[in-house]
């Protein structure tokens, strides 16, 4: 597992990158705090609907997307499930895997940020999808695009892959973004 110094080094060298970029304050002892994005997806209820999510299906008719303005309030009611995303798009190289986890201070209010799918493979590029569920009894409110909602834990894979693969995975995938990555160091 990467500790603070390892995380800072990987971030400064551009081995891991974030769009928008993170601030050093988001790097804690052994994880990186990520913020809640602004796009949310609710699964629409349909009487009698059965889906086979492991087969090819187009979910776009069965979901409702909401995009909130920066700082807009996202509300999650008790026992409600919605999909969200991290504000940051992450890019992982071939030699780093990651897990996304909640924060205990938020979990105490009932918030879960993933539904048994915390693992992120090496080479992942994109925002991280959050499976948000409110286990508690209170309405929970978050400021979209601002509140820190989860933490990313990074793991080094045991056998390092070829350098060309690491380089490709830490760089290529962000190239077609409208705003190129800013690298530090």
């Amino acid at each position, binding site marked *: 597992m990467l500790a603070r110094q390892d995380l800072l080094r990987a971030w400064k060298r551009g081995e891991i990158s974030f769009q928008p970029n993170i601030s050093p304050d988001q790097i804690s002892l052994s994880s990186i705090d990520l913020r809640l994005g602004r*796009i949310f*997806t609710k699964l629409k209820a349909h009487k009698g609907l059965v889906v086979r999510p*492991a087969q*090819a*299906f*187009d*979910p*776009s008719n069965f*979901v409702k*997307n909401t*995009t909130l303005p920066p700082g807009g309030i996202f509300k999650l009611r008790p026992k409600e499930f919605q*999909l969200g*995303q991290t504000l940051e*798009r992450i890019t992982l190289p*071939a030699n780093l895997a990651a897990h996304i986890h909640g924060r205990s201070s938020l979990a105490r209010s009932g918030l879960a940020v993933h539904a048994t799918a915390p693992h992120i*493979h*090496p*080479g*992942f*590029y*994109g*925002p991280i*999808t959050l499976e948000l569920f409110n286990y508690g009894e209170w309405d929970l409110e978050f400021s979209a695009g601002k509140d820190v909602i989860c933490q990313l834990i990074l793991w080094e894979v045991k056998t390092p*892959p*070829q350098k*060309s*693969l690491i*380089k*490709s*995975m830490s760089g*290529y*995938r962000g190239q*077609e*973004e409208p705003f190129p990555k800013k690298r530090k160091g």
Partner: protein
Amino acid sequence: MQTSKTKTKIGDVVYVTAKITNGMFPSEKYFRVATNPPIAGYVTDNQVFGNKVRAIVAEVVRDGLIVALPGEASRNNLIRVPLSLLSQRANA
């Protein structure tokens, strides 16, 4: 341009033919590659070009390539893809 195994090296970007449909978020797509067993996942839409999804070569094997797929794949993001499903250009 179809991918030739001999010209391909680890780290190259290749494009894998897939069935593409809408994703759950407006900025993503769902892809399904007809390998056996099939692999499917969600990617940001800038990784999709027509009926192809962008991938990176992780290994060159006897009958094809092992590529790393972007985004959230439902099984694994490293898959063995036959040369027939691969090209080195998005519009090939």
